[in-house]
């Protein structure tokens, strides 16, 4: 699975302006809903909030992977947002979060696809270089190029 195959170009927010976690989730849900007709923004936001209530998906190193399941989707879809200033995402290491990968899985899909996508994003993000390049990329095309470049490595 390639991230570029599931990432929705129109659901990329280059500089998300948000004071808190809920605002980030809301903006990402709206961007994805605007681009993917099967996604309902309010329902998605609700699902993401429920998941965050169990444990923050801010998993450290400035990265968060909010995720949830929705009915009516044909396959897994992803969005991305970036915050230069960083947002308090109640992350596990207590540090501000700068890079957000949103993963939405079809309701009846098994866990395998979800696990693979999580693994791939984590594999990218554990490299300092990748996070730095993604943070510094000048525009949408460049952001996509950074992700594409990593996708091609394995």
């Amino acid at each position: 699975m390639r991230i570029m195959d599931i990432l929705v170009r129109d659901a990329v927010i280059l500089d998300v302006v948000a004071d808190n976690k809920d605002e980030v989730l809301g903006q990402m849900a709206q961007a994805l809903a605007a681009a993917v007709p099967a996604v309902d923004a309010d329902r998605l936001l609700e699902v993401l909030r429920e998941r965050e209530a169990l444990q923050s998906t801010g998993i450290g190193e400035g990265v968060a992977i909010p995720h949830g399941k929705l009915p009516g989707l044909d396959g897994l879809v992803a969005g991305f947002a970036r915050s230069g200033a960083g947002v308090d995402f109640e992350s596990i290491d207590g540090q501000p979060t700068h890079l957000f990968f949103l993963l939405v899985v079809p309701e009846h899909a098994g866990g395998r696809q979800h696990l693979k996508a999580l693994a791939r994003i984590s594999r990218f993000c554990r490299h300092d270089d990748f996070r730095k390049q993604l943070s510094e990329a000048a525009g949408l095309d460049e952001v996509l190029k950074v992700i594409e470049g990593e996708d091609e490595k394995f």
Partner: protein
Amino acid sequence: MTADGVVERSFKVRAELGLHARPAGQFVSLANRFTSEITVGRGDEWVSGCSILSILSLAAEHGSTLKIRAEGADAEQAVSELGSLLETDGAG
């Protein structure tokens, strides 16, 4: 085990959905309680047991086998407690 023992054992992942974000988080917070250096292996790949990103990158699905290796004074306890966590399906 000696004071600076190295302990390594294999465990099967019992969580129904595999080692996804939540169980990976539980694993890492438990791993951080030990003074031993903890690494986790799958096949030939070894990663830090103290980073959720690293654990998630292993894509350890239900039924897969992970090796836990600990080096340090509390190595035996670390491997045994972390192994139990992997083998509890409640971690999902």
